[in-house]
């Protein structure tokens, strides 16, 4: 589904991302982990054509993302709060996204009603603007907004951050259910190793813009990741 070819991004001489090849097949649930500055958000931004690659290209379903916009109808994402429109109510926001994705109000209502548990009664029918919601509730609205219109590729940057424990568990459920549906490719980045191994079939570890590990998730993956990141720590301590 997604092919990354020789992509790199350089900011003022600093190489922040450098990936020779990465291929994500259709229907895979893909987890991206890495410390701050590892290039996770950069990779997602390149995927969404929000920044221009220095070299290389990314194709999404054989469409080169920075040459054509035809990938947009089947791709959706929630990267950060700047994906929300503060002066709309959550309902209006969902309808707006729905309009853009060819869904009428009834379609959108049908979809959002499935997430009543997830919303925990704090989103719908509250007559509040998105800007007046708490960070966590904004995130919930943004994530559900990214599920409107039956997208085939869903990109979520740090979806677990800022959520309360109950909601984190519910979100894991949602992601798993989506992954079980055939043909939906989900890309999730996270700092929470446990959550990300829980929901992903495959985990890629980025460090300083390069792929360090590429793992099929199994029972031992979490341990391996933990020892890798802990090892990082001891390595730093030894250097000092």
């Amino acid at each position, binding site marked *: 589904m997604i092919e990354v070819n020789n992509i790199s991004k350089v900011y003022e001489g600093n190489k922040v991302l450098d990936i020779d090849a990465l291929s994500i097949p259709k229907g895979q649930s893909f987890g991206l982990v890495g410390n701050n500055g590892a290039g996770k958000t950069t990779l997602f931004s390149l995927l969404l054509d929000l920044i221009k690659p220095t070299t290389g290209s990314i194709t999404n379903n054989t469409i080169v993302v920075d040459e054509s916009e035809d990938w947009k109808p089947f791709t959706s994402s929630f990267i950060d709060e700047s994906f929300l429109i503060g002066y709309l*109510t959550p309902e209006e926001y969902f309808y707006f996204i729905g*309009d853009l994705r060819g869904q009428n109000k009834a379609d959108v209502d049908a979809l959002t009603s499935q997430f009543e548990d997830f919303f925990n009664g704090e989103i719908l029918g509250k007559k509040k603007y998105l800007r007046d919601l708490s960070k966590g509730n904004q995130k919930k609205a943004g994530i559900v907004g990214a599920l409107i219109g039956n997208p085939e590729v869903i990109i979520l940057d740090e979806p677990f951050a800022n959520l309360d424990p109950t909601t984190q568990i519910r979100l894991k459920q949602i992601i798993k259910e989506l992954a079980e549906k055939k043909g939906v490719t989900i890309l999730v980045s996270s700092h929470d190793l446990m959550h990300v191994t829980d929901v992903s079939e495959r985990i890629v570890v980025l460090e300083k813009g390069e792929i360090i590990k590429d793992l099929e998730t199994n029972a031992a993956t979490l341990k391996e990741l933990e020892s890798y990141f802990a090892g990082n720590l001891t390595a730093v301590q030894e250097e000092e």
Partner: protein
Amino acid sequence: MIKHFLSLEWKQYFRSSYWQKSIALNILLVFFALYFVAVFLVMGFALLPVLKKFFPDQDPFIIINNYFFYWILADIMMRFFFQKLPVMSVKPFLTQPIKRSSVVNFVLGKSAMSFFNFLPLFAIIPFGIMLIIDGYSASVVLTWILLVILITLIINFFNFILESYSAEKELSILPLILIAGSLFALNYFELISFTDLLGSAMTSISNNSILILIPAAVLGLVYVTNYKLLREKLFLDSSLKSKAQEVNASNLEWTKKFGDVAPFMQLDLRLIWRNKRTRSSVFIMVIGLLYGLFFYPQPMYRDMVWFFPFIGIFVTGIFLINFGQFVPAWDSGYYKLLMSQNIKYEQYLKSKFTLMSLSVILLFVLSIPYVFFGWKILIAHFAAAVYNIGVNTHVILLGGSYNRKKIDLNQRAAFNYQGTGAVQWLIGFPLMILPMIIFALINWLVNFEAGIATLIILGILGIVFHNPLMRIITKRYLNSKYKMIDAFSQDT
């Protein structure tokens, strides 16, 4: 402590992307500032001879004092619109060992350093010098200068009191205009002569320097009031207090008539109505509509036919200019969303175009009563409206593609420079001046009808070629996509 604050201010100013990116804008602002300084200097030196020439049998010093009332009214109005209490992000300080009082005093002290407070000095000091040369007693003149400085500072702090009350209310401009208007009217119809009252007060203070303590006391009072107001706000709970704003939801179904631009039209209408910043552009529309009343009632302007299209462009295009110049910055807060969503740029721009065109038509209809001042005015306004729709809308949308400044919608301010780039300043003038020049030229070379016809033809050409023009504009937006995303995702 003050030293730390000052160094923070310095860094904030020079490290903001605002400064680094738009030297042109800063140069322009400096240019404006120098212009005003020059005007005031000339005024200061020229005032005394001019007054002597026109009112040879009156004491110019007394005249000045009598007219000071109008100066104060104008000053308050100007400041209310243009001057804002200096912003300082206080949250980081609250948990540090810093006295709250020193934060407040610093903010207030900084406001006293405003350009608005220095500007009058450029007029009153030369005027004072001229008075002394003319033989007035130096002590009287010096007291007078001190008095004017005190009054300026009183207005400075008084303005912030006004603003802090009006910030909590909607339609905040109206009460101020009403109060200022009624003061003016009371004075004008000589029910209460504030001019004389203030004038004689100023004259007597100047003659008895000890009385200067009275305005000094007033200054102390407004300062303390401000201090108390700010001090109260310096607690986190006042900013954390969730202001659960009731939503005024309407589904805006009627926009469906506009077809595939409907979702964007709905978004734009909500944008305008639900944010203070944009809502103020609706109120400015009302002021703009009345702009013609400054000119048309005066016989002097009624014969200046070449001037009509300028006013016509302004009256029918005030919303166009005010709203259009910040496309696409209005949407800067969620620009990444728009760019990764399944949208056609052309629809997005078309929605803005439709909105602006509708506003021009609406404003033209509302401005029809100007026909009272002559049918030529109505015709000129009509031509200006057509020109606005056909030419200016496209020009302003094109200018928007050069926009690189984020607008934080949640900030209040009628004349907040935030989001205003040098390009916008430059684009605002030709929008009004160019049609005026075209018209004036043809009006002068041929006649009135030919001038009007030219403007209308230009407008119609723009409307006819709307689609190809929009394609060119869309291309420009696409070309600067990454730059815009990058600029809009930066904090100021």
